Protein backbone atom coordinates (compact mmCIF):
# COMPACT_ATOMS: atom_id res chain seq x y z
CA UNK A 1 0.00 0.00 0.00
CA UNK A 2 3.00 2.34 -0.02
CA UNK A 3 4.79 4.03 -2.89
CA UNK A 4 8.51 3.49 -3.39
CA UNK A 5 9.47 6.62 -1.50
CA UNK A 6 7.06 5.97 1.37
CA UNK A 7 8.24 3.93 4.28
CA UNK A 8 5.88 2.27 6.77
CA UNK A 9 6.71 3.48 10.24
CA UNK A 10 3.98 1.66 12.08
CA UNK A 11 0.46 0.38 11.61
CA UNK A 12 -2.12 0.37 14.39
CA UNK A 13 -5.31 -1.68 14.53
CA UNK A 14 -7.84 -1.06 17.25
CA UNK A 15 -11.54 -1.34 17.96
CA UNK A 16 -13.43 1.83 17.01
CA UNK A 17 -14.03 2.87 20.60
CA UNK A 18 -13.54 6.32 22.07
CA UNK A 19 -11.47 5.09 25.01
CA UNK A 20 -8.75 3.84 22.66
CA UNK A 21 -8.04 7.31 21.34
CA UNK A 22 -5.69 8.30 24.14
CA UNK A 23 -3.39 5.40 23.17
CA UNK A 24 -3.62 6.26 19.50
CA UNK A 25 -2.81 9.91 20.13
CA UNK A 26 0.26 8.99 22.18
CA UNK A 27 1.52 6.85 19.31
CA UNK A 28 0.86 9.50 16.68
CA UNK A 29 2.54 12.15 18.84
CA UNK A 30 5.58 9.94 19.15
CA UNK A 31 5.66 9.29 15.39
CA UNK A 32 5.37 12.99 14.53
CA UNK A 33 8.28 13.83 16.83
CA UNK A 34 10.21 10.90 15.37
CA UNK A 35 9.79 12.48 11.94
CA UNK A 36 11.15 15.75 13.25
CA UNK A 37 7.95 17.80 13.45
CA UNK A 38 7.99 20.61 15.98
CA UNK A 39 5.52 20.65 18.85
CA UNK A 40 2.87 22.87 17.22
CA UNK A 41 2.86 20.71 14.07
CA UNK A 42 2.85 17.59 16.21
CA UNK A 43 -0.24 18.81 18.06
CA UNK A 44 -1.94 19.59 14.76
CA UNK A 45 -1.22 16.12 13.41
CA UNK A 46 -2.51 14.51 16.61
CA UNK A 47 -5.72 16.55 16.45
CA UNK A 48 -6.32 15.70 12.79
CA UNK A 49 -5.93 11.97 13.48
CA UNK A 50 -8.20 12.32 16.51
CA UNK A 51 -10.89 13.88 14.32
CA UNK A 52 -10.51 11.24 11.62
CA UNK A 53 -10.88 8.36 14.06
CA UNK A 54 -13.73 10.12 15.83
CA UNK A 55 -15.64 10.21 12.55
CA UNK A 56 -15.14 6.50 12.05
CA UNK A 57 -16.39 5.82 15.58
CA UNK A 58 -19.40 8.13 15.20
CA UNK A 59 -20.36 7.65 11.57
CA UNK A 60 -18.71 4.70 9.82
CA UNK A 61 -19.89 2.18 12.40
CA UNK A 62 -23.01 4.08 13.46
CA UNK A 63 -25.83 1.73 14.41
CA UNK A 64 -23.79 -1.42 14.20
CA UNK A 65 -21.17 -3.19 16.24
CA UNK A 66 -17.96 -1.20 16.57
CA UNK A 67 -15.57 -2.41 13.90
CA UNK A 68 -11.86 -2.00 13.53
CA UNK A 69 -9.84 1.07 12.63
CA UNK A 70 -6.50 0.64 10.90
CA UNK A 71 -4.18 3.60 11.16
CA UNK A 72 -1.12 3.50 8.94
CA UNK A 73 1.74 5.86 9.66
CA UNK A 74 4.04 6.29 6.68
CA UNK A 75 7.01 8.52 6.22
CA UNK A 76 7.75 10.22 2.93
CA UNK A 77 10.90 12.20 2.28
CA UNK A 78 9.52 15.45 3.70
CA UNK A 79 6.15 14.39 5.02
CA UNK A 80 4.15 12.17 7.31
CA UNK A 81 1.27 10.27 5.74
CA UNK A 82 -1.61 9.07 7.90
CA UNK A 83 -4.02 6.55 6.49
CA UNK A 84 -7.22 5.81 8.36
CA UNK A 85 -9.11 2.77 7.11
CA UNK A 86 -12.57 1.71 8.24
CA UNK A 87 -14.58 -1.36 7.26
CA UNK A 88 -17.99 0.30 7.27
CA UNK A 89 -20.26 1.02 4.35
CA UNK A 90 -18.60 2.83 1.43
CA UNK A 91 -19.48 6.53 1.63
CA UNK A 92 -19.81 8.97 -1.26
CA UNK A 93 -16.74 11.22 -0.84
CA UNK A 94 -18.82 14.18 -2.04
CA UNK A 95 -20.76 13.94 1.23
CA UNK A 96 -17.63 14.52 3.28
CA UNK A 97 -17.63 18.30 3.21
CA UNK A 98 -16.88 20.94 5.84
CA UNK A 99 -19.79 23.07 6.95
CA UNK A 100 -19.99 26.86 7.03
CA UNK A 101 -18.45 28.02 10.31
CA UNK A 102 -20.46 31.26 10.41
CA UNK A 103 -23.38 29.43 11.87
CA UNK A 104 -22.81 28.79 15.58
CA UNK A 105 -23.78 25.23 16.41
CA UNK A 106 -22.31 22.33 18.32
CA UNK A 107 -20.58 19.81 16.07
CA UNK A 108 -19.65 19.65 12.45
CA UNK A 109 -16.03 20.77 12.87
CA UNK A 110 -14.10 17.56 12.23
CA UNK A 111 -13.75 17.68 8.45
CA UNK A 112 -12.98 21.39 8.59
CA UNK A 113 -10.25 20.83 11.19
CA UNK A 114 -8.61 18.07 9.18
CA UNK A 115 -8.52 20.16 6.01
CA UNK A 116 -7.09 23.16 7.86
CA UNK A 117 -4.53 21.20 9.84
CA UNK A 118 -3.16 18.97 7.11
CA UNK A 119 -1.62 19.67 3.71
CA UNK A 120 -3.90 17.18 2.02
CA UNK A 121 -6.88 15.03 2.99
CA UNK A 122 -8.36 12.49 0.59
CA UNK A 123 -11.38 10.41 1.38
CA UNK A 124 -12.43 7.53 -0.78
CA UNK A 125 -13.56 3.93 -0.95
CA UNK A 126 -11.00 1.39 0.19
CA UNK A 127 -9.10 -0.24 -2.69
CA UNK A 128 -9.91 -3.56 -1.00
CA UNK A 129 -13.59 -3.02 -1.77
CA UNK A 130 -14.82 -2.80 1.80
CA UNK A 131 -14.96 0.45 3.74
CA UNK A 132 -13.20 3.76 3.27
CA UNK A 133 -9.74 5.22 3.43
CA UNK A 134 -8.96 8.72 4.60
CA UNK A 135 -5.42 9.67 3.72
CA UNK A 136 -3.89 12.80 5.19
CA UNK A 137 -0.48 14.29 4.56
CA UNK A 138 1.52 16.75 6.62
CA UNK A 139 4.65 18.25 5.11
CA UNK A 140 7.51 19.37 7.23
CA UNK A 141 7.90 23.09 7.51
CA UNK A 142 4.53 23.74 5.85
CA UNK A 143 3.39 27.18 6.90
CA UNK A 144 0.81 27.44 9.63
CA UNK A 145 -1.73 30.13 8.93
Amino acid sequence: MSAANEECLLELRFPAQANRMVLVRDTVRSAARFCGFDEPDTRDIVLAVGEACQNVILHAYAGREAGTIVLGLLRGEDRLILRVTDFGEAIDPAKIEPRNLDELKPGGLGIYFMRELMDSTDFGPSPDGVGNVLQMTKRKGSARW
Partner: protein
Amino acid sequence: MVEAVREEQGRLVIGLDGEIDLDRAPKLRNLLLDCVGRGRDVLVDLSQVTYIDSSGIASLVESLQKAAGNGTRFGLIAVSPEVMRVFELARLDKVFAIYPDFDAAKAVVS
Protein backbone atom coordinates in the same frame (compact mmCIF):
# COMPACT_ATOMS: atom_id res chain seq x y z
CA MET B 1 -8.64 13.60 34.81
CA VAL B 2 -10.60 15.88 37.13
CA GLU B 3 -13.67 18.03 36.70
CA ALA B 4 -13.87 20.20 39.81
CA VAL B 5 -16.75 22.61 40.35
CA ARG B 6 -16.35 25.35 42.93
CA GLU B 7 -18.41 28.38 43.80
CA GLU B 8 -16.60 31.66 43.78
CA GLN B 9 -18.38 34.94 44.54
CA GLY B 10 -21.69 33.73 43.18
CA ARG B 11 -20.27 32.13 40.03
CA LEU B 12 -19.66 28.49 39.30
CA VAL B 13 -16.08 27.84 38.27
CA ILE B 14 -15.40 24.51 36.57
CA GLY B 15 -11.77 23.42 36.45
CA LEU B 16 -10.90 20.92 33.73
CA ASP B 17 -7.62 19.21 33.03
CA GLY B 18 -5.87 16.79 30.72
CA GLU B 19 -7.19 15.70 27.35
CA ILE B 20 -10.81 16.36 26.40
CA ASP B 21 -11.85 13.96 23.66
CA LEU B 22 -14.81 11.92 22.47
CA ASP B 23 -14.37 9.57 25.42
CA ARG B 24 -14.76 12.36 27.95
CA ALA B 25 -16.98 14.85 26.13
CA PRO B 26 -20.37 13.26 26.99
CA LYS B 27 -19.64 13.43 30.73
CA LEU B 28 -18.32 16.96 30.36
CA ARG B 29 -21.39 17.98 28.39
CA ASN B 30 -23.66 16.75 31.18
CA LEU B 31 -21.66 18.57 33.81
CA LEU B 32 -21.59 21.85 31.88
CA LEU B 33 -25.28 21.79 30.98
CA ASP B 34 -26.15 20.93 34.57
CA CYS B 35 -24.08 23.86 35.89
CA VAL B 36 -25.56 26.28 33.35
CA GLY B 37 -29.00 24.98 34.31
CA ARG B 38 -28.52 26.23 37.84
CA GLY B 39 -29.11 29.79 36.61
CA ARG B 40 -25.72 31.04 37.71
CA ASP B 41 -22.87 32.54 35.65
CA VAL B 42 -20.43 29.77 34.71
CA LEU B 43 -16.68 30.07 34.12
CA VAL B 44 -14.64 27.17 32.74
CA ASP B 45 -10.97 27.13 33.69
CA LEU B 46 -9.03 25.61 30.78
CA SER B 47 -5.52 26.31 32.03
CA GLN B 48 -4.74 22.62 32.66
CA VAL B 49 -6.27 21.28 29.45
CA THR B 50 -3.60 20.04 27.05
CA TYR B 51 -5.87 18.72 24.28
CA ILE B 52 -9.38 19.42 23.10
CA ASP B 53 -11.06 18.13 19.96
CA SER B 54 -14.27 18.97 18.13
CA SER B 55 -16.35 16.92 20.57
CA GLY B 56 -15.08 18.95 23.53
CA ILE B 57 -15.63 22.17 21.61
CA ALA B 58 -19.20 21.05 20.82
CA SER B 59 -19.96 20.66 24.53
CA LEU B 60 -18.73 24.18 25.19
CA VAL B 61 -20.73 25.64 22.27
CA GLU B 62 -23.88 23.89 23.45
CA SER B 63 -23.37 25.25 26.98
CA LEU B 64 -22.76 28.75 25.66
CA GLN B 65 -26.01 28.59 23.71
CA LYS B 66 -27.94 27.29 26.70
CA ALA B 67 -26.54 30.08 28.90
CA ALA B 68 -27.51 32.68 26.27
CA GLY B 69 -31.03 31.25 26.31
CA ASN B 70 -31.06 31.52 30.12
CA GLY B 71 -29.70 35.02 30.19
CA THR B 72 -26.66 33.93 32.21
CA ARG B 73 -23.00 34.29 31.29
CA PHE B 74 -20.74 31.47 30.15
CA GLY B 75 -17.06 32.33 29.95
CA LEU B 76 -13.67 30.68 29.65
CA ILE B 77 -10.68 31.54 31.79
CA ALA B 78 -6.95 30.94 31.50
CA VAL B 79 -7.20 29.13 28.16
CA SER B 80 -3.96 27.25 27.53
CA PRO B 81 -2.17 27.99 24.22
CA GLU B 82 -2.86 24.44 22.98
CA VAL B 83 -6.59 24.95 23.48
CA MET B 84 -6.59 28.53 22.15
CA ARG B 85 -5.16 27.18 18.91
CA VAL B 86 -8.25 24.99 18.51
CA PHE B 87 -10.65 27.85 19.31
CA GLU B 88 -8.91 29.98 16.70
CA LEU B 89 -9.10 27.14 14.20
CA ALA B 90 -12.86 26.88 14.79
CA ARG B 91 -13.14 30.68 14.66
CA LEU B 92 -14.67 30.61 18.12
CA ASP B 93 -12.04 32.73 19.83
CA LYS B 94 -14.22 35.81 19.30
CA VAL B 95 -17.49 34.00 20.00
CA PHE B 96 -16.63 32.93 23.55
CA ALA B 97 -15.87 35.41 26.31
CA ILE B 98 -12.28 34.50 27.20
CA TYR B 99 -10.57 36.00 30.26
CA PRO B 100 -7.00 35.69 31.47
CA ASP B 101 -8.13 34.76 34.99
CA PHE B 102 -11.02 34.74 37.44
CA ASP B 103 -10.48 38.34 38.55
CA ALA B 104 -10.63 39.61 34.98
CA ALA B 105 -13.84 37.63 34.38
CA LYS B 106 -15.31 38.92 37.64
CA ALA B 107 -14.57 42.54 36.70
CA VAL B 108 -16.99 42.28 33.76
CA VAL B 109 -20.49 42.97 35.08
CA SER B 110 -23.22 40.51 34.20
